[in-house]
């Protein structure tokens, strides 16, 4: 067992705004070099959590260390070691892409080369264009470029691919994989579950300010969440569904019982999105203990 200290350690974190509890008793660690996704519906507390880790907000309770430092009292040296891609950008952007990147590179003690970063985000052609003249997706690439220009050890990516076309998204994924191979630790929030599955090693799901599940991407929701689902319409026209580890047997039995093809028959293997939605809906229904409410057949 290695004993490297975690890059991020969150212990019993709570955050309230007046009477509203945005985050309640959240704990998780992120290991150095790991990519960790924080998933959850809008307003679930993801942004509050990530902004506490970035040092933008003060926590109400609990302990947080980021790169060994409490972000609430972190100095400029600490900021030189992190990179932040904020959720939305709306800067008036009178600087050109090149000017903005050069200027930000100058703020860091050991920045990446500006040309290299320009190429990495695919904006070489737009280097001399003022940022406000770029498309939304291109401006988002500038945000990403500014987040990595300082050669961060830990990169925060808050919904980084909003506004990207599919090609740009895949290029962005390649960039993140490169950063991962360099050993960059990454904390990602996204609503794109494919992206989370593609990039992250582990994920935590936040709903209503609580961490309802955490684990490796392939293990979220537990084994029961991965049980295939068979869906069909019965003779009375009622939609039925059942979960079983032996879908073929169930389908064969259905065919026998119904004396023919079951109507609208589907066999579904849950994707991360299905599992995520199951967890979130299960939590919303108030059954945190058993988040998988459909009937499970042995």
């Amino acid at each position, binding site marked *: 067992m290695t004993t490297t200290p975690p890059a991020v350690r969150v212990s019993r974190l709570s955050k309230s*705004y007046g009477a509203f509890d945005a985050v309640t008793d959240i704990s998780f660690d992120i290991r150095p070099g790991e990519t960790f996704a924080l998933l959850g519906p809008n307003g679930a507390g993801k942004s509050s959590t990530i902004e506490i880790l*970035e*040092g*933008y*907000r*003060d926590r*109400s309770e609990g302990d947080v260390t980021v790169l060994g430092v409490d972000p609430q009292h972190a100095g*400029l*040296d600490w*900021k*030189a*070691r*992190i990179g*932040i891609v*904020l959720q*939305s*950008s*709306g*800067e*008036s952007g*009178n*600087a050109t892409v090149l*000017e903005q990147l050069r*200027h*930000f590179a*100058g*703020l*860091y*003690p*050991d920045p*990446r*080369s500006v040309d*290299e*970063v320009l*190429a*990495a*985000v*695919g904006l070489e052609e737009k280097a001399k264009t*003022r940022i406000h003249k770029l498309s939304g997706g291109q401006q988002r*690439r500038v945000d990403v470029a*500014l987040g*990595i220009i*300082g*050669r961060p050890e830990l990169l925060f990516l808050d919904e980084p691919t909003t506004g990207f076309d599919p090609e*740009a998204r895949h*290029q*962005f994924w*390649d*960039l993140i*994989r*490169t*950063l991962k*191979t*360099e050993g960059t630790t990454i904390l990602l929030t996204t609503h794109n579950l494919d992206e989370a599955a593609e990039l992250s090693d582990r994920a935590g799901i936040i709903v209503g300010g609580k961490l309802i599940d955490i684990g490796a991407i392939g293990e979220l929701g537990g084994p029961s969440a991965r049980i295939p689902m068979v869906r069909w319409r019965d003779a009375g026209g009622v939609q039925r569904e059942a979960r079983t580890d032996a879908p073929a047997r169930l389908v064969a039995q259905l065919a026998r019982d119904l004396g023919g093809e079951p109507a609208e028959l589907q066999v579904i293997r849950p994707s991360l999105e299905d599992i995520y939605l199951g967890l979130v809906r299960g939590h919303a229904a108030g059954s945190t203990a058993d988040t998988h409410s459909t009937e499970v057949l042995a």
Partner: protein
Amino acid sequence: MSATLTDRPTRPRTARHGLFSLGLARIGFEIKLYFRSTDTVFFTFLFPFIMLGIFTAAFSAQGNIGTNPDGSGGISVGAYYLPGMLAAGMLLSGLQNLAIDIAGEKGDGTLKRLGGTPLSPLSYFIGKIGQVLVTGILQAVLLLIVARFAFDIALPTDPEKWLTFVWVFLLGVITCAFLGIALSAVPRSGRSASAVVIPIVLVLQFISGVYLQFNALPEWMQNVAGLFPLKWMAQGMRAVFLPDSFASQEQNGAWELGLVALALLIWLVVGLVGSRLTFRWIRKDT
């Protein structure tokens, strides 16, 4: 986005750029962006030129100001309004410019982004104050050149007058810059910044002897204006550019440069304390 970032062993992170050298880098960046903002160039940089032109065109037909009983002597309308326009330029370049600029940067996320980098707020302030100084000096020098050569206004030749000009200008413009940083905390959003700042600036200009002859204002209005810095900047500028015979038209019959310095120093302290207390990279809701 092709993934071609080269990996290399990172240098020790402890060596940080000096606060001051980062501040200098900010000044250059800030000035570049200042001149790319059409609104700022028009309503802050060029405004005093436009007003000087309008006043000269509107009132020149009425003859000189401060003439002898026989109608001789006195100074031209342009010459009379020049000190006020210089003072207005200081207020606009410092207070109006920074209050709107920083409120906008807060509103559009610029400050939040900078707050996530190893930029010290001190370097950021150096950048802003430097931007104000450079653009303010440029504005004043151009205004003097235009006054001299386009409006044929005689400028003082006495070095002592120019010494007064330098300290009144620097003290006034720096005071206005800090007051602008402090005032930028007031607007609730970047979009409402102009609506909050411009009326304040406009009212001050009307009551402080920029657009209206100060000695023609009722005494209560002069007293109210005396509570704010613009009146003192305008008075200091009149001491430089108007003939000494005009001193008798001041509220107390003299230029009172000592009081000008005192009033501006008090407002400088107000601005410094206000900036220090109110400046945040982001609004923290706790």
